[in-house]
């Protein structure tokens, strides 16, 4: 089973909301100082999904990550978890893309790899939260896709996927090759082992430039965008919480109930 997993380096989505800042003049997010970026959590779960399949039946896992200033410690985490190879699409031309230019570049890289049965992406990246790139890659490559998976098993040239819906899940069978996007319901990704970390240290990622995947710089990154950002802003929160206190927590609790009654909320 040949598997490809697309992972993205993002600003840690679990960083405290108060640390989040934007520069409205340039419509850009300012990375919070001192907070290390991470692999987008759903992408780590995608790596886990691929590892589980390899554990069960063997195979090879190639990880692709696109961007600039990719911290090796961050993007090598999938290798430390157990993935076999890492390809970085690392070039200024690849930055600040939208769903279209990102999906296009990744699809072209996957085409170059050529030999694959399953492609995994996270259900959405934890920065722009669009959730379009997986479906976009599938459409560009002409593959079937199943999104928001919590379990993936393969047998006889098909994958059986549990797809999360609003009120449960459905079991979908899809012919391979296929693209699958993964959700957190899959379960915790494994921790890298000491051995895995050492092995990852020794592995050098392959670096691909636009020419390596047969695209013009104008087709990817900012230049390849279809959408324009008119405005990026932070919603204003009112922040007028009335704290109900008391001698004891129980007293505060009674005070809260009384207050809600007075305010006709109860």
């Amino acid at each position: 089973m040949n598997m490809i997993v697309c992972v993205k380096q993002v600003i840690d989505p679990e960083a405290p909301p108060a640390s989040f800042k934007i520069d409205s003049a340039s419509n850009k997010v300012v990375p919070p100082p001192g907070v290390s970026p991470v692999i987008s959590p759903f992408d780590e779960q995608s790596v886990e999904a691929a590892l589980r399949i390899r554990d069960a039946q063997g195979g090879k896992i190639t990880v692709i990550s696109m961007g600039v200033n990719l911290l090796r410690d961050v993007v090598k985490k999938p290798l430390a978890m157990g993935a076999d190879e890492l390809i970085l699409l690392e070039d200024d031309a690849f930055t600040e893309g939208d769903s279209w230019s990102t999906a296009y570049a990744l699809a072209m890289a996957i085409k170059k790899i050529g030999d694959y049965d399953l492609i995994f992406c996270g259900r959405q990246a934890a920065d722009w939260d669009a959730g379009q790139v997986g479906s976009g890659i599938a459409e560009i490559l002409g593959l079937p896709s199943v999104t928001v998976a919590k379990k993936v098993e393969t047998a006889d040239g098909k994958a059986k996927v549990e797809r999360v819906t609003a009120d449960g899940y459905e079991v979908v069978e899809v012919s391979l090759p296929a693209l699958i996007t993964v959700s957190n319901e899959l379960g915790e990704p494994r921790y890298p082992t000491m051995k895995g970390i050492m092995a990852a240290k020794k592995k050098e990622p392959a670096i691909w430039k636009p020419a390596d995947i047969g695209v013009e710089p104008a087709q990817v990154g900012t230049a390849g965008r279809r959408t324009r950002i008119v405005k990026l802003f932070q919603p204003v929160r009112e922040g007028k919480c009335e704290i109900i206190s008391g001698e004891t927590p129980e007293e505060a609790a009674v005070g809260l109930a009384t207050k809600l009654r007075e305010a006709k909320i109860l």
Partner: protein
Amino acid sequence: MAEYKGVMVYCEAAEGRLLPIATELLGCGKKLAGDLGEELCAVLLGANVSSVAQEAITFGADKAYVVNDPQLGDYQTDSYVAALEKVVKEVMPQIVLMGQTSVGRDLAPRLAFRLDPAASMDCIDLAIDPESKRLLQTRPVYGGNAQATFTYDSDPQIATVRAKAMSPLEADPSRQGEVITIDAGLDPQAIRTRVLEKVPEEVAGIKLEDANAVICGGRGIGTAEGFKELEELARILKGAVGATRPPCDNGWVPDSAQVGLTGKIVAPDLYIGIALSGSSQHMSGCSGSKNIIAINKDPEANIFKEARYGVVGDWKKVVPAFRDKVKELLTE
């Protein structure tokens, strides 16, 4: 070349009725169509959805396109994208709206990449730019820490809309509109998936999305038993229990209880957040609530920035006393 004109709403229905999100989309679509001076149409896809067309008209559609095909019985990416692609190519709407639902999340990007690649997902505000007449699409980004307004130049402009972000019109049974049937024209060979089984997660009591009171528990609740206590409070308030992601990931509550960016969207009169920090991703699913109340032992927790009333303390002490007092007040 023919011109793209009008607003199209893809309406989801179940058991012969429009889903609430479909009525919200029609309300929003009507306003956009009005601003453009163009028509609003509804599209229904399914095995047998003709009976819903009239309801879409009562909620504001000028026309309803119906595509019935046994192969559209279950949602499947290949069949739905192909059918909707055909409708869009025939009708040529300038704007296509869908809900940010299990279906819309999957359908919109794939349709956008097939037709002409651009869509905005999970919009909470849509407006027509008075000068360019293009659609301004505002959506939360970075887990809700920021919002961005997008626009693009090609048609159709495709957007999904978050539940409860838009208001439906009053249903007007006297409204008239044309119902047009379109053949799905599906090639069975081109459908590369098969739905083997649907497994619902049964949740007793009032549905989370419909409840007037939502009691949400977070990681700090600590156990499945802890959530039983919240259920008791919910019963007294005639509400439903929700959760942040960690309690779902830990199996204390079913996954379907998750509220937030990648869970359910709730907007009750009363939301009580207990032992949860108020991450932007969670608040994305409940910040539309009328009254947000917080119970947390950490006075610095982010939830207090969004709450109207709060108590700083251990929920294990606060919740039982609160529940008893609420019960007393409500039975007076």
